[in-house]
């Protein structure tokens, strides 16, 4: 019954819009090199929550437009050029926000605006057990209609983060070692196969660029390399159904991983070396060798993720859950 908004950008995810604004303002020089970008002020400026801003900054970091440094936040500019941090309020800069984007950011009511925030909360809670999502509470929490809430929930269902139980309640979790194991088994079957198919379509220069940054660029994290492997290698496979299957299978893992890192779980240093070897095999050897290595790497990742599932047991449940999540 709702009117379809006339603004085509209104359907874009919020992080996508924020990425666009930041990207164009970095390109125009409105945001100078070295400026420290912090989630909070950007979120305030864009009238958004922090989660889409985090996603936007991660995307820009992957593109090399911003980079992490020893302090909080990101610096504008490519990594390792020794740019001095410039700490000023982003509101003081003459940021260009195209009218259409601004309107789209103001538009409430499209589910994509809220999706990332809800996904992160739903992913995190699963580590602690089984939760019911109360639709009315979620609508109140987001300040939107039940229709929008249902859109958000059906997307979460597609991504495998929630399911309906026998009494038609939306249930999240519990995330178990078995779930993780199964997802990684599937990855070890699908991803090397996709990599083989993708071989002829991979741009070696892109992969070399990533490989050469591993080590010298301390801001490059395993998650970033995993995303690069997906974007520049596996997703090039000329089989859309296979690529979609891989992406869907990874979704729960990615969101849980992000949630756990947010809780302060340690980062995996050894994975960096493995990505270096993998990228090297991709650009310098027959693709079969890279595919075999990827399968081994995924088995190691599975073991690490299972170990990680054990250690979250020490985190007490006082982290606080969003009000629409009810412990079962």
């Amino acid at each position: 019954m709702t009117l379809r908004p006339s603004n085509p950008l209104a359907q874009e995810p919020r992080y996508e819009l924020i990425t666009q604004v930041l990207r164009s303002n970095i390109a125009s020089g409105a945001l100078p090199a070295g400026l420290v970008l912090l989630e909070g002020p950007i979120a305030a400026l864009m009238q958004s929550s922090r989660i889409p801003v985090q996603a936007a900054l991660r995307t820009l970091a992957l593109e090399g437009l911003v980079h992490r440094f020893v302090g909080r936040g990101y610096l504008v500019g490519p990594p390792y050029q020794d740019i001095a941090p410039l700490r000023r309020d982003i509101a003081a800069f003459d940021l260009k926000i195209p009218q259409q984007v601004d309107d789209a950011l103001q538009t409430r009511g499209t589910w994509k605006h809220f999706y990332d925030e809800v996904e992160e909360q739903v992913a995190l809670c699963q580590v602690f057990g089984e939760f019911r999502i109360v639709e009315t509470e979620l609508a109140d929490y987001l300040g939107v209609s039940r229709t929008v809430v249902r859109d958000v929930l059906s997307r979460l269902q597609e991504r495998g983060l929630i399911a309906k139980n026998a009494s038609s309640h939306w249930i999240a979790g519990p995330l178990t070692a078995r779930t993780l194991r199964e997802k990684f088994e599937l990855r070890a079957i699908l991803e090397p196969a996709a990599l083989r198919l993708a071989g002829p379509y991979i741009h070696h220069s892109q992969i070399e660029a990533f490989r050469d940054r591993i080590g010298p660029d301390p801001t490059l994290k395993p998650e970033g390399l995993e995303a690069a492997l997906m974007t520049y290698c596996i997703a090039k496979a000329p089989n859309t159904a296979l690529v979609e299957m891989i992406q869907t299978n990874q979704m729960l893992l990615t969101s849980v991983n992000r949630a756990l890192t947010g809780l302060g779980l340690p980062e995996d240093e050894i994975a960096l070396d493995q990505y270096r070897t993998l990228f090297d095999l991709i650009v310098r050897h027959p693709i079969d060798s890279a595919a075999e290595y990827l399968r081994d790497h995924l088995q190691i990742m599975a073991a690490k993720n299972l170990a990680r599932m054990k250690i979250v047991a020490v985190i007490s449940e006082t982290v606080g859950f969003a009000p629409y999540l009810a412990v079962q």
Partner: protein
Amino acid sequence: MALAPPAAAPLAAPPHLPRRRLRVRGTSITLLKEVRERAQADLGFDVDYELMDFITCQRQAAMQPEGYDIYEQCFHNLDIVWFWGALQPIDTDRIADWNKITDLSKEGGISKYAWRGHGDAPVRKLYVQPGGFLGPKQGRYISMLPTVHNMDSFGFDTRVFGHGDVKRPSWAWLLDRRAKGRIALVDEPAIGFFDAALAAEAGAEVQFTDIGNMTIAEIDALMALLEDRRRQGYFCASWRTGEEAAQLLLDDRVSAQSMWSPVYGHLGKMAEVFVESAPVEGYRAWHGGASLSRHLGGAQLDMGYDYLNWWLDGYAGAVMARQGYYMSAPERTKAALAPEEWAYWYEGAPAARDLLGPSGDVVVKTGARRAGGTYQDRANRIALWNTVMEEYNYAARSWDRFIRRVNEGQK
């Protein structure tokens, strides 16, 4: 191991020179006053002990490795603490008595033919493997220096169950109707959970394909059984420390409960009726040790190694023996114990005289015999090791909810 006096102060230590200090975080298993005082005297530096219960200790060790230099705990919780990156590998080349440590610790069983037990034998967490994992493949670097260990069981009231001579004790007694309302469990999820699991399987209430690595369905089945028993009023309490376990007995509130060895020495008159079991199914074993915090380096790391080496030297093993714990390097322990002590604790012989505990009070009366017999007998009958299973997060959270309900006495 004595420390040379500082060269700059030949007469007396100047007051402004701070004493060197090693900070040890651990549990009541090993953090005993008698051990600390002797270690300080032998090593020439201060040893600070920070005593915590199992769960708190594990959490703090994982998340705040800067807060301690040495971590004394059990092998099974390396799954947590090691993977938080809180510890550093120990170089066995710097452990003088490494070759005196027995095969139970280093190989996984006291002999080639001994049954290894379900779950994670300590050897499976001992050696540092490529990629930062822990495993049984022998190498120079280890995660934790193996020290004390024991084979635990439950304790029972002979007025209720008899003396165990007509019908041998079974873990099933821990969920037995005869003890209804007078059963207590230890609340640590990697320990009490398995006491309950052994009891449930021994009583043929639940079956596990692998009790040391349960599936979600098996965990659910066990927790459902325990919840049913709880609603019927089987459990009177849970406990976290040996003192709490002893108090439950002194107050005559329990007829069967999880037990730790040192508690038996502090039961007063109750010792006549409440005894240690040697269950037909075998023991639930655990193995303790000491690890080096990630941040240690330089002179501080040297002190850490001095302390680890000192642990194998005999004295600490003797103190441990007097509370019923075995030592990974028994030769030197034997030398540090009186022959009657060694005969009672390790050889299962009747006590030739009253034996004293670590703090000097009588814990074993003349003529008493240790349940289960010799060290060899007991070590050959390990049913299960304390384990952090794959589904530990799920199991521990279910267990915690259960324990909370037990303590709140909810209907």
